[in-house]
């Protein structure tokens, strides 16, 4: 879905994936400033929702400070050229949510699912299409499925009517080769365009996005200043700058995006997006990026190392959405440490 003048379409997810990094505490003023900045810089699609998609506000994922539909309505009000998109995970959000946001002016629906479960998106992709929205199938944790497996899943989504299929490196766990093999398989097998959503836990987000473009991806995701789950997303302004250096036409103004990141988004951030130990472990162990802050809180609450929690979640092959398992693992580690401590004391007596 590129226009005649751009080589790929840039979708910005600062107001959706970025929401994880600020524990879903966006306010209307933030939304207005970010949408205006992205829109003026020429970004074609702006995604907005709770970090876990429509209906994500919950104990399990964190409650939104402001109901997401109020924020979405503001975004729809202030955009001039950019389309407003939402994300929905079947099992968390409802088809009714799509109907409501479509009324508000949302015209792109990304239906997200773990990379092996595409058949649960049929209902929601069809509802989005019936509403006249663009429907994007979004296969998460794509490192957990083979190129062939992803093709199988993507073909299902294409058969339901998806207009574009994305793979998301939700754990920031893929190397450039991993991305190339998957995108190549998808662009070969699919009739619809392919997109890639990258995370930076292994410091590969921009390189992986460019590699995806070289393999034929026509949609790439970014967030301003990399604001997002885990160690952060592919930073929109860096992706735009690097694309320009490669001679890839994006249709966006890198300098305007740099201003937005520096003047609007960074001041909002409770912490800068760095690849610290926990962030790196997410990518290294292949754990869903949005577990970062939840596992930090559980580590503090139960006095166990955050890195141990994340490594155990990786061993259990936990998928996106299973944030409750962070508490489960923390309690088990705390019990194990307590048992070891009392055994140590007895041995010492």
């Amino acid at each position, binding site marked *: 879905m590129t226009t005649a003048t751009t080589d790929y379409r840039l979708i910005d997810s600062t107001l959706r994936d970025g929401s994880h990094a600020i524990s879903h505490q966006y306010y209307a003023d933030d939304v207005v400033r970010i949408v205006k900045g992205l829109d003026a810089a020429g970004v074609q699609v702006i995604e907005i929702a709770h970090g876990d998609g429509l209906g994500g506000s919950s104990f399990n994922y964190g409650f939104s400070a402001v109901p997401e539909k109020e924020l979405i309505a503001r975004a729809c009000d202030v955009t001039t050229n950019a389309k407003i998109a939402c994300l929905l995970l079947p099992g968390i959000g409802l088809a009714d949510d799509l109907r409501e946001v479509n009324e508000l002016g949302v015209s792109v629906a990304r239906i997200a699912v773990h990379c092996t479960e595409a058949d649960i998106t049929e209902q929601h992709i069809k509802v989005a299409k019936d509403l006249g929205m663009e429907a994007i199938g979004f296969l998460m944790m794509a490192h957990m499925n083979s190129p062939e497996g992803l093709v199988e899943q993507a073909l299902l989504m294409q058969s339901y009517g998806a207009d574009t299929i994305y793979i998301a490196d939700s754990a920031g766990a893929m190397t450039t080769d991993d991305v190339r093999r998957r995108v190549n398989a998808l662009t070969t097998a699919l009739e619809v365009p392919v997109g890639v959503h990258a995370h930076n836990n292994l410091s590969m987000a921009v390189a992986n996005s460019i590699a995806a473009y070289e393999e034929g991806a026509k949609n790439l995701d970014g967030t301003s200043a990399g604001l997002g789950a885990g160690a952060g997303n592919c930073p929109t302004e860096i992706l735009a700058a690097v694309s320009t250096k490669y001679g890839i036409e994006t249709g966006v103004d890198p300098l305007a995006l740099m201003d937005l990141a520096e003047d609007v988004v960074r001041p909002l951030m409770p912490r800068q997006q760095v690849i610290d130990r926990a962030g790196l472990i997410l990518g290294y162990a292949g754990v869903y990026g949005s577990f970062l802050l939840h596992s930090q809180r559980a580590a503090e609450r139960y006095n166990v190392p955050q890195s141990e929690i994340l490594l155990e979640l990786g061993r259990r092959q936990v998928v996106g*959405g299973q944030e409750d398992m962070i508490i489960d693992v923390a*309690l088990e580690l705390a019990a194990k440490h307590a048992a070891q401590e009392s055994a140590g004391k007895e041995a010492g007596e």
Partner: protein
Amino acid sequence: MRCAILGSGNIGTDLMMKLLKGTDASGSAPTPLELVALVGIDPASDGLARAKRLGIDGPHEGPDWILEHADDIDMVFDATSAYVHVRHYKQYQEAGITAVDLTPAARGPKVIAAVNLTEHLDAPNINMVTCGGQATTPMVYAVRRALADLPYAEMVSTVASKSAGPGTRQNIDEFTKTTSTALREIGGATTSKAIIILNPAEPPIMMRNTVFAALPEGTDHDAVLESVLAMEADVQKYVPGYRLKNPPVIEEGPFSTPGGVVPHRAVVLLQVEGAGDYLPPYAGNLDIMTAAAQRVGEAIAHHKAGTTTGANA
């Protein structure tokens, strides 16, 4: 009481295996249910073949067979789909057959076996909610009975991909909506949310359910924890593999829930291991559904016969 199972898929076949044990859902008394037939639509289905091997009638004429044999059947366990149930439930009622509905059609009153088992014993149609609803509503109710008011409750159900059938997958919104309603109507929460996640890990994971409950200022936390432990024992009476994976905990907030800001939340981490009657033990989601349906069917049978239920034993 003479009953038939309609639907020869995973749920229907598992329920057949349970009823053929001869004991009731508690495992401690004979079942009052006499299984007449497992009724399918596909003559080649594994469930019907198994029924015939076990000496049970296994016709493949679907709902028509049930209606034609109305004189020989008092109760039907409907394990087809919401669509099929909605089309036929009135006919079962007109034919005088009590329907225990294992689909999310939600035509009759909802029953959660550990909470309101005896509330609708005369209803012509009983809805069994969802597997996640059977697993988590008891814990929401357990928290609720220890409080003056439960402003918000939430459940997260994670099931192995292999145990989620096409019915669930094609209509996942029905699962979350029906479950969320049960958390309010039967669990007693003022507001609620339900979430379902599918996990494809190999070997398949056991069904996991987590209940989060908002605890207002002034809650007696010990009373909440005691009530949760008592409920675990109650559900275990008919689902032996139902257990708290970790002790229930109270976490400090504050939390801005849809039911208002609360200072604490209760977290109840559950695992359901199936009895392995038809599907492997990881499919606790199917097991809790069939075990609960058996429990409800038996309560109705005892009520109609004027005998004591296993539930009181």
